């Protein structure tokens, strides 16, 4: 799905603001400096998603997801490769005494949901606030598995907004990808909202 240069730029700026705000929240949570890359954005069909984000359907991933309703109806997912999610949790857990196998797993899942909730809610709220809309987010859920199985439940006709950014927590490099699965009408609505927003800003400018 081809974005106009103005739409791509606007989505990139939204992703930049969302990722930056997330970085700040994460830095407070992890008590560490977070560096982030320039986010990349794209809108693709669900069938194009693995190639677009460089994650194969057979890759093991960790996923925090939240259902959305309101002006954006669909699912927001934060995807990490499983080994990277462990690094993120280690950064959070720090020097907590070693727990038993099952307790540690539950702790890790809760930590990932907390981190994922921060990133997803900041990014989605940045987008909808700038467009003057409202989107409700359900409670965060966590899942591990093959990437293909995770996106299997999405309609083959759905579109996906991809926001890809690399976060470096301390000396640990982690790449997280936020994917927002929407119906095609919702994607068209989002793009129309962007166009209206940009036109409104252009109309507010003082004549030169």
């Amino acid at each position, binding site marked *: 799905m081809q974005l106009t240069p103005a739409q791509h*730029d606007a989505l990139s700026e939204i992703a930049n603001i969302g990722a*930056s705000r997330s970085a*700040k929240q994460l*830095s407070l949570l992890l008590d560490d*400096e977070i560096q*982030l890359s*320039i986010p990349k954005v794209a809108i693709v069909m669900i069938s194009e998603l693995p190639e677009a984000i460089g994650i194969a359907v057979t890759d093991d991933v960790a996923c925090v997801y939240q259902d959305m309703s309101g002006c954006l109806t669909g699912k927001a997912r934060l995807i990490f490769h499983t080994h990277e999610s462990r690094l993120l949790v280690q950064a959070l857990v720090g020097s907590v005494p070693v727990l038993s196998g099952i307790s540690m797993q539950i702790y890790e899942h809760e930590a990932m949901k907390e981190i994922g909730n921060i990133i997803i809610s900041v990014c989605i709220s940045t987008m909808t*606030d700038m467009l003057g809309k409202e989107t409700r987010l359900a409670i965060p859920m966590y899942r591990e598995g093959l990437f293909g199985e995770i996106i299997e439940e999405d309609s083959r006709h759905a579109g996906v907004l991809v926001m890809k950014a690399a976060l470096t927590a301390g000396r640990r490099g982690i790449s997280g990808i936020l994917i927002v699965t929407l119906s095609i009408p919702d994607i068209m609505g989002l793009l129309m909202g962007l166009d209206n927003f*940009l036109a409104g800003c252009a109309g507010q400018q003082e004549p030169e």
Partner: protein
Amino acid sequence: MQQKTILIVDDSATSRLLFRARLPGNSPYVLHEADSLDSAMEKAASIRPEVVVLDYNMPGQSGVEIARAMLKAGIKARFVLFTANTQKSVLDEAAAAGFVAVIEKPVTSEIINDMLEKVGQCN
């Protein structure tokens, strides 16, 4: 009254558009734009802005690096950081480089107004 100039340096056209749209209508400042180190240096040398507003997270050089380059080139302006990344490390970096203010994205007219008042009070 001599017109004052602001140079905004941001790789995002949307961000520059938003800043322009929210610059108060009665502001005595004229806004110029640049999207990279090269265009920023060229514009700054030409218009000698009173205020330079710099995005932090840009491809190539950060806003702080661009400010350092301008200072080295003898461009005397008040530097303002324009970012959503207000981590302590970023704020400390900006302060060390001599930035006089930090304004958060997404910007509002009130934020710009407060910034211009603060900048106007700087020596």
